[in-house]
């Protein structure tokens, strides 16, 4: 229960901060960072957070389902833009793989 409380507190504070920055970053993402720092600086007991976090993260694939079901109303948008979406996705995925891989490999090597 304490773990859930900690997560909720981070979310609430995150939402408040999100308002301060005019929604630049959403409240749940700020909440994620708050939870990270609170654990890192031992403000919260990681043992308390672990079971709740593990449950939420383990079930996360279920939470996307309603968005996926949204395809039944927005399939038209996807079909209208198939060429753009497919090209952007494929090219960009390769670009990210290669960039992240190269940069990491290069700097990791220099280190050793």
């Amino acid at each position, binding site marked *: 229960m304490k773990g859930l409380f900690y*997560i*909720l507190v*981070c*979310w609430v504070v*995150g939402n408040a901060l999100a308002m301060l920055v005019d*929604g630049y*970053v*959403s409240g*749940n*993402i700020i*909440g*994620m960072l708050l*939870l*990270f720092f609170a654990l*890192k600086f031992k403000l919260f007991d*990681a043992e308390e*957070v672990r079971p709740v*976090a593990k449950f939420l*993260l383990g*079930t*996360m*694939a*279920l*939470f*996307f*389902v*309603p*968005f*996926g*079901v*949204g*395809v*039944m109303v*927005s399939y038209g*948008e*996807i079909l209208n*833009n198939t*060429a*753009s*979406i497919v*090209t*952007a*996705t*494929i*090219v960009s*995925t*390769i670009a*990210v*793989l*290669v*960039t*992240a*891989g*190269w*940069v*990491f*490999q290069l*700097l*990791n090597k220099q*280190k050793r």
Partner: protein
Amino acid sequence: MIDAIVRSEPFLLTLTIALYLLGGAIFRQTKVVLLHPTLLTAVAVIAFLLLLDIDYATYRESTQIIDFALGLAVVALGYLMYEQSECITRRELPVFAATLAGTIVGVLSVVLIAKAFGTERNIITSIAPKSVTVPIAIAVAEPRGGLVAVTSVVVFCTGILGSIFGPAVLSLFGVKDPMAKGFALGAASHGIGTARAIEIGAAEGAMAGLAMALTGVATAVLFPIVEKYLY
């Protein structure tokens, strides 16, 4: 009477969870990435709604608690970052440089290619965060007018694409360092890429998980700037 039950409040939520459990069982049996539980469940739910002529708005209303749970899960990702932050020790430079480079290249390439096709703004916003985990991608796209259904589909496809072809692309371009491979898979293909990296090895898996979390944060912070100035 059946109609009354189907339209009663907990029915659609219960159905969704039932189909998800079934989808999970099928996925574990077959181990085929394309038979991902989320995908199977979404397809089955759509078929069910169409069959019984229930509209999407009704479905969304009765599954609102799932939205709430997703919000909680995004915050809980902070715990995952905490667990993985141990891996950063003495590798700060490659980790942060690769996060930044991967994020910038990922968002910019999507935006520029889609713009070249003359794609509308709301679609560009929907697909720009394609490399990050669905909850973060949705948290980034939704408040800025993105269509979350398009986001979920594109993010899912990116995950599948990276997990199937990622390792081959990396060897083709000479990425041999196991940590770099794992990091790239997590940065490009979020959770699905991470699952693939874990199959390859422990070092790859840990780096992929870390990359997924950091790329998510970097995208959330950098995307609004791109959105404001580039399209």
